[in-house]
């Protein structure tokens, strides 16, 4: 100890002599010593060579290492250009810095910055430093820092983290963080542990886990590289053999493998061939063949072969040679990311996970379809009332949906509280569209009850007029209808299955309307009268029911529901003057598929249309347009077998 102190004192003197500004610098401090060992590469500051320096710091076990790494990362470390000693520094002004000792952080004093150079680690190096810092942060007293460290590991896991993580697991008092640490430890074990058995055990431990993190790690571990060889390769690391020309390996790719493995001569592309020929045109001919005759690939091949024979260009493989080469070699995929045993275990685990994943995706799809179905149901229920009960096709139904949505938008202009505004908008939208529906029934529809095709056209006239009117009033750009904050976010079951709260709300709304409809139709005087008028208007009239009034109310009711559907749809889609058009055809199809005159039919129709659309989209995920086309095709075919919908009325009722 004494010896060391003396030595330190001596060095201090030397340092003080060399750099007059450094009064209290402690060059003998172990941390400084360590840095000096790697001084050259630290000063060089290159991402490719810096590794050992950071590693040395991180594994030194010195208490100051964390601070040094942090301040280095923050570009607060400087070094003296002559002695190479490192200090922390803060810029005082443009030419002066205040320096601190790196061992104990004590202030040394202000010095001119001429002799010092700042270390400016680039982002790559900062990343490496960050990785090294993780092990310190894992045991940081602040739980947020520990969490941050875990996130950092998850983003960029490295073999080195494993030991650090294991070291930091004990003594973790926060149960949530402890669980995450444990899970991360198993993930890292899976990927980085030195013992294959441990890795396989960890993989098996994750059997059936749907986490995105597990799948990401497993997928990394089963990564393969394609190769080609003359003989079927031996060895457990061969994932599988490939057949050229199959779906997994095209002929061109297979030949490309041979070429890159230098097992075959390269082929020449059409463009390269043409370029070679063009480069060798002499006096209007190539290798003695007239340019004017080179108007076909065959002729060009011959000319190129002639050039190759003359030694002007490299010979290339002919089609026959290509075929022969492909025939003579085997193609395979080789595990490259993990030892064969581990990779195979990972493969098995992935297979099992994918099966469960499929089931869960199906569940998620069913949820999606359910929410789509409830939207169609909401959009179609009003139509089902007017079409089913009154046999009136209302082409302006979509515009009533739009009116409802715009009502919501206008309410939000005046009422800024979103919860309150939606609560006002729902009944108001009902009133507005109820009024519009009653007006339309009184002014137009009742004159056309016996001419359904003309009702269709007249309501279409109203539809285009309303649409343009909305455009003239609100402009063509989309207007927002904002959901209250408590409807943000999703109900998450696991990494695969989730559903947003808005969709749940719409589903609940659809259920409410189903209940409301059933109640009104089966339990109220109005419903009784509506059913009577539907079945036999003349008889109903003779019993004192006023069919005019009933028709008016029914139409208003159907239109009012469209308005409420408009608010609901506006919450998750944009409000535009054309939004009604997006739903009208689907709504019609829902009613047609479900069958007329029965609310359960509409429900089934909506479920079928929704499920079908989601199902087709899932099978052909890149293309929702094609999905809709297929759905329409399906419905046209469906009508073939059930022309009157799923729930069809029979006998005299159907002919009435």
């Amino acid at each position, binding site marked *: 100890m004494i010896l060391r102190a003396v030595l330190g004192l001596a060095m201090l003197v030397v340092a003080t002599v060399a750099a007059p500004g450094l009064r209290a610098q402690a060059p003998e401090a172990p941390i400084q010593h360590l840095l000096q060992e790697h001084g050259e590469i630290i000063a060089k500051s290159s991402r490719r060579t810096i590794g050992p320096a950071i590693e040395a710091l991180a594994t030194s076990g010195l208490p100051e290492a964390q601070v040094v790494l942090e301040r280095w990362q923050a570009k607060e470390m400087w070094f003296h250009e002559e002695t190479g000693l490192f200090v922390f520094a803060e810029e005082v002004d443009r030419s002066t810095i205040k320096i601190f000792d790196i061992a104990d952080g004590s202030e040394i004093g202000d010095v001119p910055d001429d002799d010092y150079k700042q270390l400016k680690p680039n982002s790559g190096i900062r990343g490496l430093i960050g990785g090294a810092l993780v092990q310190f942060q894992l045991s940081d007293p602040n739980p947020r820092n520990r969490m941050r460290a875990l996130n950092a590991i998850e983003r960029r896991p490295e073999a080195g983290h494993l030991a650090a993580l294991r070291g930091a697991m004990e003594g973790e008092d926060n149960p949530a963080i402890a669980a995450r640490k444990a899970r991360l430890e198993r993930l890292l074990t899976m990927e980085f542990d030195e013992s294959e058995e441990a890795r396989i055990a960890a993989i098996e431990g994750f059997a059936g886990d749907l986490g995105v993190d597990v799948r990401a790690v497993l997928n990394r571990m089963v990564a393969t590289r394609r190769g080609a060889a003359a003989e079927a390769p031996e060895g457990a690391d061969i994932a599988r053999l490939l057949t050229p020309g199959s779906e997994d390996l095209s002929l061109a790719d297979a030949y490309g493998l041979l070429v890159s493995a230098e097992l075959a001569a390269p082929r020449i592309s059409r463009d390269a061939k043409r370029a070679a020929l*063009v480069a060798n045109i002499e006096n209007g001919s190539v290798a003695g063949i007239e340019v004017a005759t080179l108007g076909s690939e065959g002729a060009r091949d011959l000319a190129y072969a002639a050039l190759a024979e003359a030694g002007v260009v490299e010979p290339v493989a002919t089609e026959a040679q290509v075929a022969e080469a492909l025939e003579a070699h085997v193609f395979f995929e080789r595990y490259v990311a993990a030892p064969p045993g581990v990779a195979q275990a990972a493969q098995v685990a992935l297979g099992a996970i994918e099966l469960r994943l499929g089931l869960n995706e199906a569940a998620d799809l069913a949820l999606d379809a359910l929410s789509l179905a409830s939207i169609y149901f909401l959009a179609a229920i009003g139509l089902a009332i007017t079409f089913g009960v009154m046999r009136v096709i209302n082409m302006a139904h979509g515009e009533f949906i739009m009116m409802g949505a715009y009502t919501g938008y206008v309410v939000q202009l005046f009422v800024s509280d979103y919860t309150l505004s939606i609560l006002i908008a729902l009944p108001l939208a009902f009133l507005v569209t109820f009024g519009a529906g009653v007006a339309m029934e009184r002014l137009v529809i009742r004159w056309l009850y016996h001419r359904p*095709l003309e009702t269709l056209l007249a309501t279409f006239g109203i539809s285009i007029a309303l649409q343009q009117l909305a455009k003239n009033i609100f402009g063509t750009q989309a207007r927002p209808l904002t959901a209250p904050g408590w409807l943000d976010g999703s109900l998450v079951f696991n990494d695969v299955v989730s559903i947003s709260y808005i969709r749940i709300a719409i589903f609940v709304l659809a259920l409410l309307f189903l209940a409301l409809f059933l109640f009104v139709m089966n339990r109220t005087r109005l419903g009784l009268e509506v059913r009577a008028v539907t079945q036999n208007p003349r008889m109903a009239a003779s019993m004192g029911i006023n069919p005019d009034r009933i028709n008016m109310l029914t139409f208003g009711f159907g239109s009012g529901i469209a308005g409420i559907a408009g608010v609901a749809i506006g919450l998750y889609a944009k409000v535009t003057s054309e939004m009604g058009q997006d739903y009208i055809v689907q709504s019609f199809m829902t009613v047609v598929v479900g069958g007329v005159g029965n609310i359960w039919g509409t429900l089934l129709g909506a479920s079928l249309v929704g499920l079908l659309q989601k199902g087709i989209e899932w099978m052909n995920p890149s293309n929702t*347009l094609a999905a809709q086309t297929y759905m329409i095709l399906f419905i046209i075919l469906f009508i073939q077998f059930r022309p009157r919908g799923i729930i069809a009325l029979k006998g005299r009722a159907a002919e009435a």
Partner: protein
Amino acid sequence: MSDLAIGAAPRRPFVARHPSVLIFLALLALFTLGVTILAEGFGIGVISTSFVKTLGKTLCLCLVALAMDLVWGYTGILSLGHMAFFGLGGYAIGMWLMYARTELIVIESLSAAPLPPTPDEIRDGIANQIFGVVGASELPPIWAVAHSLPLQLAAVVLVPGLLALVFGWLAFRSRVTGVYLSILTQAMTLGLALWLFQNDSGLRGNNGLSGLQNLPGLGGVPQSTVSMWFFWGSALALGLGYVLCAWVVSGKFGSVIRAIRDDEARVRFLGYPVEAFKLFIFTLSAVIAGIAGALYYPQAGIINPAEVAPIASIYLAVWVAIGGRGRLYGAVIGAALVSLLSTWFTGGQAPDLDLGFYRIQWVDWWTVLLGLSFVAVTLFAPKGIGGLIDLITERRPPDRHGADLGPEPGALREQEADAK
């Protein structure tokens, strides 16, 4: 159109028995002659080339309106998808126009290359030119015969015809009628439009086909001349189409389809295969629509999937209803009047109407007006503009021979109430 005088059955020529056909053809000829004299191409140049194109397009719209009248006015099938057939005809001819013209351009540009082009290079060049915009570089299979004018012309007739045949067979066979059928035809055209909208439909997605006004190999002919060719072609097609439709709806066939319109079940009990008649009319009208489309789009210059959106077909029904369905000249009048008015109003040529407190700009308000006037026509004038002609003719001594058969409120109401 049924003027069978009983007892005597004089075999007069078809046109003589149907004077309205003769009047129509005379007016059409006069109109064509007038436009020819006034246009730039061969006349004194009072009418601009773009207006000649507008008139030529209007003639095509009249032709497709005739087809619609055949289906709806006479047979009672309210098809809301006939513009799909119109669009398919346009796409069929557009493919050839675009391919052939691009081929000339590609050959032209490749001829500057040091080596003479190979067929593959030409094909790739064409594919790149046409499909670069949707990020593809290979000709889709449906372009296999795009190089051949006769085959694409055949497609103008066959593609709409086959689609109508298959769709109609499916729909009529399962006795889908009335509003159900309307919705189904609407779904058909929506399906087609959605399919065309995708980039990998092979028909350039929502870019559609463009440059169709340029005839391949006739780059030197000015548009003023080309426009007249198409104008004459459209007039000829309309004339022929009118005579064909008049012939179809006259005589016993006309009787049967009008009977189907009024009481389908009764016609069945007379022993007529109703479905076969409907299918015949549906397919025939689809073919006429396809031909009209093939003449329309070279004058329009561009076709894209929006043209076959459901709204277009509904407008077609609007024209026929406003003109007066169940009479051929009604369809022509409706299509010509409404489409020209639409062009005038939406083209910004109509003067704004100043109400003092609000300035009505027709570009914005024309659609509202059209929609409302459509409601008014349906409510108050179910016979459409053609009803005016009845007012004039019915002042003469009552002669029920060959009186026109508009939808009689009494007759139709009872049967339609029965149908649903």
